[in-house]
């Protein structure tokens, strides 16, 4: 009965924990971010081993890819405002002080205690029932799609998913309205190799992202994973400065941010009537409606994640920036 991969699983589990410790122990922020990305990739692998390919894809695309990019961008900005990029420090900036050892020890003890309590409670309790499996299996024929995870996310519990898309919308609105008062850190010069890489990678990313979205109705994948992969297109365009956000683009960007939420909410409302409540798709149109929602939500997620990477409302940049960073 022993799984032949048990050794691999053990190794994976130990590595994930070790990497988590290493991330927290790393003094250098850049090293910490790189370790965090590796941690995310191994976690994705762990999810795959736990037979949760949808979670694995999401972890790899969002938890690791997009988050890693956001962290690196933040680090670059931090180095800029603290004057580590051959630059004057921004006024009022003080270098971060290391956390006192006492605080670290107290935190570690507290977290350890909680983990221990949870472990005891978890191990001492009878394991629960089958969860939603039986209910989902019974309702699948009316869901309009073949993949149970997609059926749960976009039909049975579509209300949750709509609100998760709203969370992303709230995030980008909150980020756009922060008054920074500082200019952006100049993007690093990426050189010739980068241009070539972007040219090769872009089409591949578009294909992978669209494939993930399309496969979502019958196999693992879907809007969040596809959107995160497609966001990489935006990241590449921004980094290679093939696209520079300008104030004139704000209106279009706002429309793209709300496109997914708006379409999702509109469909949820428009299907009502004749005894149907919100989100109750007619069974024969369910698949079309779900694919429509997923497609538009994917676009919004991709644009929103790329905008979060850019990190601010597009503003008119002073012209001196252009020759500063070339």
């Amino acid at each position, binding site marked *: 009965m022993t799984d032949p991969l048990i050794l691999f699983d053990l190794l994976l589990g130990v590595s994930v924990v070790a990497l988590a410790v290493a991330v927290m122990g790393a003094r250098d922020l850049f090293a910490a971010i790189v370790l965090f990305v590796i941690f995310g990739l191994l976690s994705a692998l762990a999810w795959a081993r736990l037979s949760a390919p949808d979670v694995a894809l999401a972890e790899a695309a969002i938890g690791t890819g997009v988050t890693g990019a956001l962290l690196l961008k933040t680090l670059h900005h931090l180095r800029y405002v603290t004057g580590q990029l051959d630059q004057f420090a921004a006024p*009022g900036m003080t270098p971060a002080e290391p956390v006192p050892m006492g605080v670290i020890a107290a935190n570690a003890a507290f977290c350890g205690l909680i983990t221990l*309590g*949870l472990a*005891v*409670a*978890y191990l*001492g*309790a*009878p*394991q*629960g*029932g*089958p*969860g*939603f499996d039986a*209910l*989902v299996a019974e*309702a699948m024929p009316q869901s309009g799609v073949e993949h149970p995870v997609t059926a749960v996310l976009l*039909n*049975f*519990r*579509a*209300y*949750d998913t709509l*609100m*998760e898309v*709203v*969370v992303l*919308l*709230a*995030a980008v*609105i*909150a980020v*756009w*309205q*922060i*008054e920074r008062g500082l200019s952006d850190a100049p993007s690093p010069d990426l050189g010739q190799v980068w241009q070539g890489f972007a040219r090769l990678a872009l089409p591949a990313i578009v294909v992978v992202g669209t494939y993930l979205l399309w496969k979502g109705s019958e196999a693992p994948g879907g809007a969040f994973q596809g959107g995160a992969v497609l966001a990489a297109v935006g990241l590449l365009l921004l980094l290679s400065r093939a696209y520079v956000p300008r104030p004139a683009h704000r*209106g279009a960007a*706002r*429309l793209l*941010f*709300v496109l997914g*939420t*708006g379409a999702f*909410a509109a469909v*949820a*409302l428009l299907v*009502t*009537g*004749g*005894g*149907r*409540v*919100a*989100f*109750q*798709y007619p069974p024969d149109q369910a698949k079309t409606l779900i694919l429509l929602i997923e497609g538009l939500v994917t676009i919004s997620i991709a644009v929103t994640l790329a905008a979060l990477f850019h990190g601010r409302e597009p503003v008119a940049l002073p012209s001196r920036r252009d020759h500063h960073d070339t």
Partner: protein
Amino acid sequence: MNNLMSLDPMTLALFLPLFGAMAAFIAPRAASVIGLATVLANLGAVGWLAFEIRAAAELITPLGGWAPPLGIALRADGLSVAMLALTGAVGLLVSFSALDALRDARQRQYFWPLWLLLLTGLNGVYLGTDIFNLYVMIEVIALAAVGLTVLSGTREAVRAGLEYMYASILGALLFLMGVGFVYLQLGRLDFAGLIAATPSAALSAALALMVVGLLLKTALFPLHFWLPAAHANATAPASALLSGLVVKAALYIFLRLSTYMPLPDEILVTLLGALGAGALLWGSVQALRAERLKLLVAWSTVAQIGLIFIAFARAGQVGLVESWKAAALLILAHGIAKSAMFLAAGRIKDEVGHDIIRDLDRSAIRPTLAQFTFALAAISLIGLPPSLGFIGKWSLMEGALQAGYWHWVVATMVGTLLSVAYFSRVFAGFLRFDRMQGALAEHKGWALADLAPLTLALAAISLGLMAAPILSFIELGYPFGAMP
């Protein structure tokens, strides 16, 4: 499932603010008009819902036609409609005052989408019956609330907003971890599943995680560290929304959960009451020491949250059948009075030019109507008759006395005295004229902008006279009493 109306007021209360937020974001120039229209329409939907609840006592809509536990149902009863009405009515008046209080174009443009998203989240919490759904809703609330905190754009506000976000996300993650444990144990996430579950150590651990997360979000001492700076540094309308409405959402979820999944031990109820007493004392002492008016008001929120937890614990585990009503009354009273007070404090700061308490009596400018509003709100928060705050405190002490728990009465009395003391610091500044520099300025006693806070403060006082109908309304649908 038969005879379902195609559009019910609960669905409207969710979708109206959501569409309003999107429209206000796409069309920034029309944001104020869209915002006001949406908030008005939302209040209309809540009024319709209240009308239906008076007849039917409870309404349930299984979204997507999928019944729980597979799907998610919206449910309204007396208590949830009271919270929706608090949110809708306070929200409308704060929206009116935002028209005047938000001066720069960036603030005016972004206030409305953030506030309407917040309204979506709050309405979603009060109609929610599924703990994972509640997690998603508190995330919507958290992001919109952080956005509103940093809206003022000052360095202090951004720093306070960042701390608020860390606390908020940590709270939400603890809650989510608890939700995960519940699903592992029960295989379902709806309230009915929680009520039917047999208690176990693992469920208690899950409940502990969720409760600690919620306490962090509602800022119960000693997890209040993020609140004073965040609420004091936001713009006045944002402060009113954050202090009056946002902390109530986590409090409401706590109230539901702790009744559906009873705390495993009586000691824990007492512990929560003790933390409440700690909050009452510590918040009051800090309010006595605060140098700025808005910071004093923010610390008073910490103290008042403590009072609500004392009301929750007033008669122990068995007394919860009645105690939740005292807590609910105090939640309503605080929501109305505190938003009035923050708006009035904002008006005073705008007119006088600063909000340093020590120097209020030096100012030659006396915004008398705003000062009057502040005093009315303080009367309700202190708990003088006939205000709603008085009724809340009265029922707290009545229940504690009946159960023989004198210590809660003592804590409440001490807290009341301290609140008289710290609000008197402000009144002294309003009423003294001997330290004034120069002649009293040309009378600028009131402005149209004073109307919204004054209405709220008058409501906080006069709703105390309607306590009996309010009490019988929140019992509709038996939020807790008759549940098996």
